[in-house]
């Protein structure tokens, strides 16, 4: 079956512009996660959803970051007034249930802020 998909795969934007990153999880997966990864580094947790609710927003770096999920499926991560330090790969993952440990990742969106 189809895996997690993300779009766009690459995004170059100017400092100060807003960007939207999209994630389509595996069908039937109720939990969805957003991470940020700098070059060759580990993953920084941003936010997760159980259904359409986000119980834990503690990882969002600032109030310029927001995320939503609709219909228990697609999620959008929005970064307002982008800064150069926002440049990274943004990864989305999904899991069958909130109680599942295993996460399945998409290919990521590489964001470059110039």
């Amino acid at each position, binding site marked *: 079956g189809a895996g*997690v998909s993300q779009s766009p795969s690459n995004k170059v934007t100017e400092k100060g512009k807003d960007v939207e990153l999209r994630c389509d999880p595996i069908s039937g997966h109720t*939990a969805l*996660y957003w*991470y940020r990864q700098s070059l*060759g*580094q*580990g*993953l920084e*947790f941003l936010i*997760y959803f*159980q259904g359409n609710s986000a*119980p*834990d927003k503690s*990882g969002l770096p600032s109030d310029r970051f927001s995320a939503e999920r609709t219909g228990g499926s697609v999620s959008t991560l929005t970064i307002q007034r982008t800064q150069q330090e926002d440049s990274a790969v943004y*990864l989305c*993952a999904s899991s069958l*249930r*909130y*109680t*599942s*440990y*295993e*996460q*399945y*990742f*998409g*290919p*990521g969106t590489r964001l470059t802020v110039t």
Partner: protein
Amino acid sequence: TQLLEQSPQFLSIQEGENLTVYCNSSSVFSSLQWYRQEPGEGPVLLVTVVTGGEVKKLKRLTFQFGDARKDSSLHITAAQPGDTGLYLCAGARGAGKSTFGDGTTLTVKP
């Protein structure tokens, strides 16, 4: 605060050699996952260990969870160039969010 520390950070070896990657923490985890990530792709799950002292084998890869469930190791026998990638461990302390280590970048030279 880095809850999971991986070592070494970088490892470059010749094809056929053996290697071990470590994932250590002062915290107890209910489970621990190992992932492998190739450039331009997302991490791919290799294994989950949940019981203290558990050992799992996946072909030439052997994973071990420490008795106290605070640490884990990944051992690769007779490494091949196809094993090249970033190896990440992730610990879960209950459902939901996992904490990831910074990863070990492995390069296997032919």
